């Protein structure tokens, strides 16, 4: 296959599900074996958008994913800096600590933490869910920022310091703009992982925190296809938007985006 055709096939595989969701979400009275819907109707989709339960789930997902990505950046940036810019004993061990959670299934970590969080009173709280989302999120943020810092020339910061810039000024006026693509991509990755998380939210949310994936799961077991389609659309819309915004950064190795299975 030629390079262009591979890119096109991949683009198509990305677009087909979106098209399928659009058709199912807006089709009216589309019974088997009709190839094309008779009528289009946006009523169901609009009713979905207005549904208080969906709005609440969307809101909670948004709060959790935004909070998690902020927390992960705040915790992950200093850690990645130390790991990448300094040589010390035990560095491999710490990297291992950030690698293990990426391979241990969240079913295992989730059910292990279920009781602990109940005991600590964190189960069923937004903060508790955010905290537990850090397990799959933080490693990706540290690894992404780390691989971008590996290509980073710290002398820009030293140059700023000798010109009289305080550490705070250096951080905001030099480090952040220099590393901006990587920080943005790491933040988007964090949002995305948290937004798609089902098992951990279920086990720690304890029925009180309802997120979008939970609605999708209950729709899937219900079998209403147009409901599944509208929920899927609502689910992926923010992700498409965010990834579209950072698409030009994603292809560049300097960003260091760590791929994720």
């Amino acid at each position, binding site marked *: 296959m030629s390079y262009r055709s591979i890119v096109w096939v991949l683009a198509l595989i990305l677009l087909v599900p979106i098209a399928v969701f659009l058709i199912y979400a807006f089709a009216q009275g589309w019974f088997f074996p009709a190839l094309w819907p008779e009528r289009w109707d946006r009523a169901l989709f609009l009713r979905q958008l207005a549904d208080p339960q969906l709005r609440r789930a969307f809101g909670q997902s948004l709060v959790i994913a935004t909070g998690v990505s902020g927390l992960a950046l705040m915790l992950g940036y200093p850690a990645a800096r*130390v790991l990448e810019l300094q040589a010390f004993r035990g560095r491999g061990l710490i990297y291992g600590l950030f690698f293990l959670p990426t391979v241990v*299934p969240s079913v*295992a*970590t989730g059910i292990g*933490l279920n009781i602990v969080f109940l005991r600590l009173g964190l189960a069923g709280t937004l903060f508790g869910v955010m905290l537990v989302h850090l397990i799959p999120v933080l490693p990706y943020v540290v690894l992404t920022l780390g691989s971008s810092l590996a290509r980073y020339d710290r002398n820009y910061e030293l140059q700023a310091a000798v010109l009289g810039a305080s550490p705070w000024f250096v951080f905001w006026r030099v480090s952040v703009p220099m590393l901006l693509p990587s920080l943005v991509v790491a933040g988007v990755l964090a949002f995305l992982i948290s937004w798609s998380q089902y098992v951990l939210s279920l086990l720690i949310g304890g029925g009180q925190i309802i997120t979008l994936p939970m609605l999708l799961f209950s729709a899937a077991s219900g079998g209403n296809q147009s409901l599944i389609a509208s929920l899927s659309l609502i689910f992926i819309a923010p992700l498409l938007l965010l990834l579209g915004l950072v698409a030009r950064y994603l*292809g560049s190795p300097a960003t260091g985006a760590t791929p994720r299975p």
Partner: protein
Amino acid sequence: MAKSRRWLGLAPASIIMLGLFGGSLGYGIAQSLGWLPFLGQRQLSLAAYRNVLAGEQLGGQWWQALLFSLWVSLAATLGSALICLGLLSSIAERQQQYRGLSTISNLHLAIPHSVWAMALLLVLSQSGIFARIGFALGWLDQPSDFPVLVRDRWGIGIIVAYITKEVPFLLLMGLASLRQQGREYLLVAQSLGANRWQRVRLVLWPLLAPSLIGGSLLVFSFIFGAYEVPALVGVRYPEMLATMALELFLNPDLHARAEGMAVSLLMSLIILLVIGLAWRWRRAEQQP
């Protein structure tokens, strides 16, 4: 000063990771050993493990689920690795820049596994879009003529969902090593007289192998332990280990918790074994 600064930067993230991850592991092991203080049970025993591995009812279920999980994970991993290898070897010689491919592969992240599974359900089910097209073309007369591709007993739906999802991931892993002068090595080999097949076998494969094998192991461990896709496009029987563990854990009978915990720990143990073996193998390869 540098030393205290170092720990100041590392400590928050490491402590949170260690606390959450270690806490979950510790409590998980304790509960799998039957330490369920909320039930007033503080006696440690291997009963849960015995039930899971050799119990009358659960034992059969465990071995079935283990086999099914291995089948699905291996098939999906091998399938996506082979597709990825084929794609990369067909373009590696002519391509210098991989920006477009890398961007589109990254964009696939926008569709999470669960949503992806939903799309497959709508396309591949017996009244899905493919079945409608088949009917329009006159290939089938009723929905049941269409093969059961999702929620099937061979896990075809799960495997298809993972292959389509993991190929872009493996492409990204492979591109990372191709970008570093992959084309130059191939051109050098060509100028030294290597034919197309020799170039693929002697240059491209060694170049891609570390990242593709590493990536495939990540894919395997992910699929082996993931819950969402089998829960959405799988069947109750046979089921995968992750679904078995979570269902046991969420069972109203609180004693099933220990068994759910045991299943999830055994599942994690298998993954860590695979990763550990791979790691040792890599180290042995790197040593002269």
